[in-house]
């Protein structure tokens, strides 16, 4: 609690939010579906990971590790459904991100754009690291990482996170 007092800057930041079930289910399906459809016409769209951004958003808004874990697992498994990798690759990565983001959401200010940018950047890195570890160590795939490309993708996703989170704020319901 002491840590919380030190980090928070306003009363609003300790609020816990919830979402209607339509938003909780519909939004991930819509955004992950869009992510699968839009690159047919706009190839650069592939760089966005809306599943990851939603996991972070729900986790820091609900401020519950349990909820963050389950939301991350569900969104990750949904994403796995569109790939040819075994189920659990994105699932495990996003489970950890959901847990981590909700843990951080309890402790620091996650409402201002700067912290959201840094949060998304940090968790994008964690997500990719876990993903590569699973691919290499558990599945035995020879995945080569282009650090420059990953850093660029992290920045792009973080910028998107700032705008997306601002938009998604309107779906929040104060608990």
């Amino acid at each position, binding site marked *: 609690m002491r840590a919380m007092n030190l980090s928070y800057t306003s009363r609003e930041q300790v609020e816990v939010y919830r979402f209607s079930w339509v938003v909780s289910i519909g939004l991930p*399906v819509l955004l992950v579906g869009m992510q*699968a*459809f839009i690159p047919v016409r706009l190839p650069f769209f592939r760089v966005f990971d809306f599943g990851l951004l939603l996991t972070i958003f729900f986790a820091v808004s609900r401020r519950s590790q349990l909820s963050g874990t389950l939301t991350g697992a569900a969104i990750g*498994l949904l994403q796995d459904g*569109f*790939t040819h990798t075994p189920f*659990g690759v994105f699932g495990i990565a996003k489970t950890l991100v959901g847990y981590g983001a909700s843990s951080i959401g309890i402790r620091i200010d996650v409402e201002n754009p700067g912290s959201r940018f840094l949060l998304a950047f940090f968790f994008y890195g964690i997500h990719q690291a876990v993903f590569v570890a699973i691919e290499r160590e*558990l599945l035995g795939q020879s995945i080569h990482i282009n650090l420059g490309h990953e850093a660029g993708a992290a920045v792009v996703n973080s910028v998107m996170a700032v705008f997306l989170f601002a938009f998604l704020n309107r779906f929040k319901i104060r608990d």
Partner: protein
Amino acid sequence: MNLFSRHKNTVVLATVLLAQLLGLAVQVKRQTAEGPVRLIRYVAVSGLAPFERMLIYSGKTVRGVWANYLDLRSVRRENLRLKAESERMRLDRAREQEDARQARRIQALLGFKEQWIDTTVAAQVIGTSGSESSRLLYLDKGTKDGIKADMPVITPDGVVGKVLTVYGDTAQVLMINDPTSGVGATLVNSRLQGIVKGSSTGEVQLNYIMGDEAVQPGEALVTSGGDRVFPRGLPLGTVAKVSMGRNLFLEIKVQPATDLDRLEEVLVITEQKARTPDTAGLGPIRASDILAQHLPGVPQTPATPQPGATPQPGTTGATNGHSAGAATVAAQGTAQSAVQSAVQSGNQGAAQGSLTNKPQTQILKPQTPKPAGTQSGNQGAKQGGTQSGNQAIQKPLAAKPVAPKAASPRAGGANPASAASPAAGEGKHPQ
């Protein structure tokens, strides 16, 4: 109980992770057995595919109305450009047709069997995996349209990938730039063979080319057919960059022939057949044709019809055989012995012996057939049907042979010489 409620979040995290890890382990083990499609994947794909299809089609309709009825500003200019291009391509086509005819004749001579694309199904791209780490496409055609797993997917430009999983109305295509894909490839000029694979960033690479080989940027790359998925000779791309890799192999980056990021329609090859190139309409295959093409410096001699040189109905089959050896020997008036030896010892031996024993230039000398040679040639044809030799002598330099329609190599089914021709070409004709 208190311990659980105290560490509830950690326990749930560990449980969810463990469950997924176990699931991962089960799937990895099962993958080798190619188990059935998992329900969750089926639900995910089937649930979203209709919406994606609807969006694609509605977008296509709007674009079609705009492009076909409204935005016609540059049509006239484009029409002129296309006309000019059409003229140029017509000339190219005539030249390439001649090359293709020649290639087919040579392939038939060598007894090649090729994988021919028999049937294709056109499909619309309706979705992707949405992830950079998994290069997949979703098509609007599935099992109902005859699509099966492992079928090659191409565009007119080149190879796209292969069908990975098929659903009722949808198929999942693994593109060649996915890290888990692999396509047998041949470099067109150097004939080196390697494997084309993707990378996590979507680049295409040619692997397993030894470091001491010379590979130049710009060299074209086609499928080798060695993977038993893609037919031989489909364009894969061109070499973009060559550098020394960390191990003994070269690091070769490939520019794909198809723009893999902008695919809208593709073709799925649903049926391939192995068959010998059809040379029925190409005229007879003669050793002299092959030789003439390899000796371009010798001037052509107009053929003068000789009374005794007209192919007789009874000798057409013999003429079709075109055993190079028999032609050579006939030119020297020793066809009788050659034919007889062909009959006795088998066509291959006769053809090979004749080709190797006699200087090839002798075919190219225009000679007036001697009565004895003619007789012996015809007699040989009647006996063994190997070769009359007359036509070969009279038109020794015919690069584009004109022959009676019956002069197809297939016509020699009962003719031993027809079987001898490929054998003659098999590593025996001069290169």
